[in-house]
């Protein structure tokens, strides 16, 4: 009887050699006359252990990692297919502390199933939310999302149920659901992992959203830097259509929902929702003024729900398990779970999904194991390139939208980038401006030109040219960008700059 062996087909796992490991496993098994059934699962998100391979034994799935091609023969020598002992053995996968201590909702299936096996998805509770939704009215679904307390996971944390209510209440001949999968923030990869490891969850969530607000078409805008995620998602959509979960008659309900994945083209600004809509319509990704809100006049001028991947994926679990179950997780007004992403100079990088409320320090130290370099943590940037830098003594901050906002920081999409004490914060501040130069859509002058001037001013400060005057100028420039830009690109670029200047004045010559 063949033994199932799992090797992730995930981008990071493959960047670390998973394809070669998979080929070596097949080759070794063949040469030894052993029968294996190789499954390319998604990753569990424990990226520091990739390639992490798993073997299905009589005692459940056991893990080995990180495995290189050179280890494969020896693993077979030590009875890999029976879960044999080996220095790379990690024991039962579910009991790896990093995984065991998480509360996985969005990522419950990640790495467990073959992402393109619809039976796997159903067997692990998939489409239970859609079944429930099909028996409810649109208003009842929207009410459940409101009760759950779900807030937008893209960064702005706007209550999803309120947005949906607006779309539901706006009469139109056509409405749309748009998923923002333009995950451009450095230090974030949760959307990518979900698209590659459990894409059907997103398909299900979007279908439920369509039923809720009366939308019959959905688009998923995936960034072009994620070719693998795009390919898996497209295949998943085709599977769902084949099995009747998408199309003119969703699950025999007589209701229609069509879904299409579209590729971005390397513009960070298209993660901003109005710019994304422009891009989907086939134009330059220039930000639109709001109002009108996309919920009233969105894609092609029609009422549109625009939500992040994790927001829409959460909907499937909320419908399946109930709004009250979901809101019991989390704290304050930040309810449910938040998949945090540990990145940068971190020993144990990966996805850590937890109810809101854990401290940033516990996340970095207990899960992350400190820096990869072994040097002290000096700065942490949370929430992507527009998020504030925090100093090492601010890490007791709880992971909660309001607690971060009170500290003039933001949780954003949950990316945590750790820097050790070799970082030059003036260089980081300069980069924040430089990034804005490269990625500004150009609509607002403070963003388009202010960022260019910002690079120049920081260069003068670093060169010790009229330092005090230029620090004042930088402060005023940040004010102009913050108050004079339409969207978060120009409006929030000052956040990392200001935080670097205020918390690390010694790097600016103070």
């Amino acid at each position: 009887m063949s033994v199932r062996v799992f090797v992730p087909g995930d981008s990071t796992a493959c960047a670390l050699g998973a394809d070669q490991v998979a080929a070596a496993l097949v080759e070794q098994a063949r040469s030894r006359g052993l029968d294996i059934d190789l499954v390319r699962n998604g990753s569990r998100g424990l990226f520091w252990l990739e390639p992490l391979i798993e073997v299905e034994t009589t005692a459940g799935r056991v893990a080995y990692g990180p495995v290189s091609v050179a280890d494969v023969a020896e693993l077979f020598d030590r009875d890999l297919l029976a879960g044999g002992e080996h220095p790379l053995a990690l024991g039962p996968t579910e009991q790896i502390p990093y995984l065991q201590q998480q509360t996985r909702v969005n990522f419950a299936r990640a790495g467990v199933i073959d992402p393109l096996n619809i039976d796997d998805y159903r067997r692990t509770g998939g489409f239970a939310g859609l079944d429930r939704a099909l028996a409810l009215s649109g208003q009842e679904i929207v009410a459940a999302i409101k009760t759950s307390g779900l807030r937008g996971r893209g960064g702005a944390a706007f209550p999803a149920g309120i947005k949906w209510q607006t779309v539901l209440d706006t009469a139109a001949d056509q409405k749309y659901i748009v998923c923002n999968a333009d995950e451009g923030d450095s230090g974030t990869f949760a959307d990518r992992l979900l698209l590659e490891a459990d894409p059907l969850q997103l398909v299900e969530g979007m279908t439920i959203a369509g039923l809720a607000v009366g939308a019959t078409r959905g688009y998923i805008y995936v960034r072009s830097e994620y070719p693998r995620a795009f390919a898996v998602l497209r295949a998943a959509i085709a599977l769902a259509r084949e099995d009747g979960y998408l199309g003119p008659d969703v699950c025999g309900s007589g209701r229609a929902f069509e879904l299409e994945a579209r590729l971005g083209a390397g513009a960070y600004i298209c993660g901003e929702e109005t710019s994304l809509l422009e891009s989907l319509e086939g134009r330059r990704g220039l930000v639109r003024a709001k109002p009108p809100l996309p919920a009233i006049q969105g894609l092609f001028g029609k009422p549109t729900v625009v939500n992040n991947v994790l927001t829409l994926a959460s909907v499937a679990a909320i419908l399946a398990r109930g709004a009250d179950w979901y809101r019991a997780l989390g704290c304050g007004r930040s309810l449910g779970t938040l998949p945090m992403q540990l990145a940068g100079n971190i020993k144990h990088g990966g996805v850590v999904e937890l109810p809101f409320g854990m401290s940033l320090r516990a996340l970095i130290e207990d899960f992350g194991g400190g820096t990869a370099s072994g040097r002290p943590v000096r700065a942490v940037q949370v929430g992507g390139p527009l998020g504030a830098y925090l100093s090492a003594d601010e890490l007791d901050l709880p992971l909660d939208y309001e607690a971060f906002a009170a500290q003039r920081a933001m949780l954003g999409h949950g990316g945590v980038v750790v820097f050790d004490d070799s970082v030059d914060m003036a260089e980081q501040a300069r980069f924040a401006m430089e990034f804005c130069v490269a990625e500004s859509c150009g609509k607002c002058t403070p963003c388009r030109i202010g960022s260019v001037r910002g690079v120049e001013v920081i260069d003068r400060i670093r060169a010790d040219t009229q330092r005090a005057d230029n620090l004042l100028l930088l402060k005023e420039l940040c004010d102009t960008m913050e108050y004079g830009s339409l969207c978060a690109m120009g409006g929030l670029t000052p956040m990392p700059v200001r935080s670097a200047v205020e918390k690390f004045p010694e790097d600016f010559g103070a």
Partner: protein
Amino acid sequence: MDADTADTRVAGVLDRLRHLPGALLPILHEIQHELGHVPAAAVPAIAAALNLSRAEVHGVISFYHHFRIAPAGAHVVQLCRAEACQAVGARALEAHVKQRLGIEFGATTADGKFTLEPVYCLGNCACGPSVQVDDQLHARVSPQAFDNLLAKLGVNS
């Protein structure tokens, strides 16, 4: 490829995709996929098919970093410049790569073998520095690891 073949292929793409709502980006992607770039000569045909001005089509091509109007080198090297990779040595790697290839970002080597491009995040932020060569992503790329990649592509130090 001669101009006639390119024109025929552009016409084929337009035929297949022009009916899509918001068809311009899918069309540009498909043309670049087939021809390696979006030639200036294709712009009038795209504009005509979508009832746009040539300026509008050009404006979209030039807005997005992904689209190129000239053929790239035989291999495209994309180096992540974003924060998570900076935290693990991307700046030193950038200097090394530019020195090894002898070009700056946006340029192609004289022998036409490599085009070097910056990229702001490849979603591999737990295992940087990240480099993508053609369609293959590489993790934890040290200067030495980059030299090994070059060696595999037939470039010796």
